[in-house]
């Protein structure tokens, strides 16, 4: 008996009409999807994206090579070597982050006593060769230079 009723219902395309009802309802409303490359969703000021090494306003690098980020990193993505710079301060000679290992947890940022390593809001990047995933100190400082203003704005927002 049920089979017969099902067959008759299928002749009237009832399922399709049910689906179209939802489509019709959403047609009049504002869409929630965005046209990604042209349009972007707003990001939190605490977004954890690509890493950067910051500098002081006078151009001096902030990182003092304390290795706390290396120690705290749960994915062991950070590795660094330190030395005594000519002005008798502790500085890094090597600072590398393997972005394939990194899980973007933000612990490095939290551990840093001088706010040198930060995670910026950049999330659109790619590597063309495998070894490119290891960011070195020069790359990270460059990103820091480029995104210092945004970083300062984000920090201002986070304060309140």
């Amino acid at each position, binding site marked *: 008996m049920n089979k017969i009723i099902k067959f008759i219902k299928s002749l009237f395309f009832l399922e399709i009409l049910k689906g179209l009802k939802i489509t019709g309802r959403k047609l009049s409303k504002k869409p929630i999807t965005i046209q990604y490359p042209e349009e972007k969703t707003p990001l939190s000021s605490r977004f954890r994206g690509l890493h950067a090494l910051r500098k002081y306003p006078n151009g001096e690098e902030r990182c*003092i*090579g*304390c*290795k*706390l980020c290396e*120690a705290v990193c749960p994915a062991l993505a950070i590795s660094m070597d*330190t*030395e*005594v710079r000519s002005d008798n*301060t*502790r*500085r890094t000679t090597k600072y590398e982050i393997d972005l394939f290992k990194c899980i973007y947890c933000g612990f490095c940022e939290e551990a840093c*006593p*001088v706010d040198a390593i930060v995670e910026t809001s950049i999330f659109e990047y790619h590597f063309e060769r495998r070894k490119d995933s290891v960011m070195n100190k020069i790359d990270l400082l460059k990103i820091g230079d480029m995104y210092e203003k945004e970083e300062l704005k984000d920090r201002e927002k986070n304060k309140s």
Partner: protein
Amino acid sequence: MHIYINDTKLDVNENETIIQVADRNDIHIPRFCYHKRLSIVASCRMCLVDIENVKYPQPACSTIVKEGMRINTNNRTAEAAQKNTMEFLLINHPLDCPVCDQAGECELQDVSLEHGDYKSTYKELKRTVIDKNIGELVHTEMTRCIHCSRCVRFGEEVAGIKELGMTGRGEETKIETFINEGLSSQLSGNVIDLCPVGALNNSLYKYSARTWDLKQMPSISSNDCLGSNIFYHTYKDDIKRCVPKEDEEINLSWLSDNDRFGYEGIKSEDRILHPLIRRNENLEKTDFNSLTEKFSEYLEKYSSGSCAIMSAQSSCEEMFLFQDFLRNKNVKKIDHRSKECDFRYQKNYPTIPSFDIKLIDIPSLDNIIIVGANISKEFPILSIYFRDAHKNNSTNIFSLSTYEFEENFPLEKSEILNSQELENYFTNSNKESDIHLEKSKKNLILIGPAVSYLCNYSNILNNFSEYAKSINANLALLGDQANTSGAWAMGILPHRLPGGVSIDGQEDSYELLSDKDDLLIIYNLEPEYDFSDDNRIMDKLKESKVNIFFSSYMTESIKKYADIVFPLSTQVESSGSYLNTNKKLQHYNKIINPLGESREGADILLSLCNTMGNDYTYNSIREKIRKILAEINISNNYVRIKNLKKTNSSDSLEKMIIRNPNSSNPTLRRCNSIIKTHDNDDYFSLPLDKSVSSNNKIIFNEKNNQFKLTIKQKVHSKPVNAVLVKIGGTHKQKIGAYSTEVDL
């Protein structure tokens, strides 16, 4: 007697302090100024504990236990006291832990975390202190200092040189050197370990790693015959620093600067990283197989006319294999005494020269006569025992020497003699100034390694042995290198096999550098610095047909004369064992991998031995050495020689080499920071038959080499007209020959 700490009943001895009882029973009491080997000052107030029926908290380090005392280390009173102390200590302590080398092992950090408060009520500015430069080895950051005064007490009580002191009061208190000079004590590095905060730091380690990354590996010191126990701290296959490993029988909690900083040289640019062979006048890289082939070929050809000299810094394993291989190849002249020139004593010498008594028994002695050794410079660890002996047992210490120096313990009497006077010191019975020791007392005569460089060493040994026997004294023979005792036991000698078995048919007139040899094998020695006569060895190298070197470092003479060079790894890069001066066999393991293609000496020698059909393994060699040593039994160290000719007093113009402990082996010679700190004031004494004024210049002819030396000062009246000459440059042993002309 019983006391209660935190309601646990504990057995205590009389006159113990609370902190000693607590330490023994693993009860934690925070402290800064207290150290078990230093005196008690109770100045930091960190160890305050609550004692029942006592109104205020008392310092655990200076409070002596009483029967039935009830102590609380963690109740509210004690904790409040600790918290307050901590707050005061942190008032002026900078929060620079991220850049501080002490971070991670800092006592202040640990105690602050455990007993401190998370906030401070102090709002004013912190104090800063301007650092003084106190030398190449210890780097200071005095703003971090919490004035525990451990370093000051160490200088006064252990090192014997009051170099660091506390100046000023209250806010102005500073730890600094009184005069603007670097630390000069050979034990100065210990203040780094003593400092509970990061005020005194290791200069070589500075900012190169963090403490939590370091891997700790035990080893044995290769720089003196005491065989101090050490820990190397490594990071990424690189030695970052060296700290003492506590050993109640040898180095206690201390370490000499040579041991602590002596690894610096292994990264020297002179390191030989490849097997080298001479082709077309040049040394060229090759592989080990062709080296061993060539080596065996040369040995077949020249075996009877060959001479093999090995460093006494090599391990027992290397020594056993070296002599085993060469003796099988029919090489008879094997020796390790490159700096000696008088060998008449050798048949009567003990199988293992040793200290004869245990180091811990030194403080119980009544009289000690030191012959030709500057203990505080050459054996800093030993000087701690001597100081202790003088302090606690008022031991009389006498020093007889060929040159003037300072000791860090008080000397009852110190005489400067020339080698003939030294020889006859106890044989001239009519002399008034003689030292008179009683037979019933505990006496020790200590012969330093520098005496063995003298050309009447046998006479001195014989005469002092006779005297020692007459006063019932022990005779201590200190080795020149880390494994001199091992070299004697392992038969690196022309007249003895391992275990002291004599070989027949050895002439009495043995001389190491005299006759011509076709084949010279030099193992881990540098011809420029390690021989009694550098001119003779150069001539020998020139005259011999083939020179084979086993060396870690390249020198001018190796570049010029070597035909085959085996690249040898240094001690930290190899495993082995050392027999120390107390006849204690101590094993050490490889700390880091050998640099480049260099190989462990024992590996090279094992493969050489096994080409002859032996099937030695590392373990079988160790077993053999253990067996050999177990069979040796020596009752005393006396060296008494029959029919010994007296030294002719007309040969009195003699250059004396001052044994320089800071460059006594190839690796130490390349440790720049040690040389800069400790090697900058070296003199050697030169007796003259003319009187000199201090402005004269001496030109010193050593064959064709001319050394111009300015007289620093005319120091001693004994030996007559001897002058101390300051030598420039880093390698002091360069001038090391006898029969030298002096023009004035």
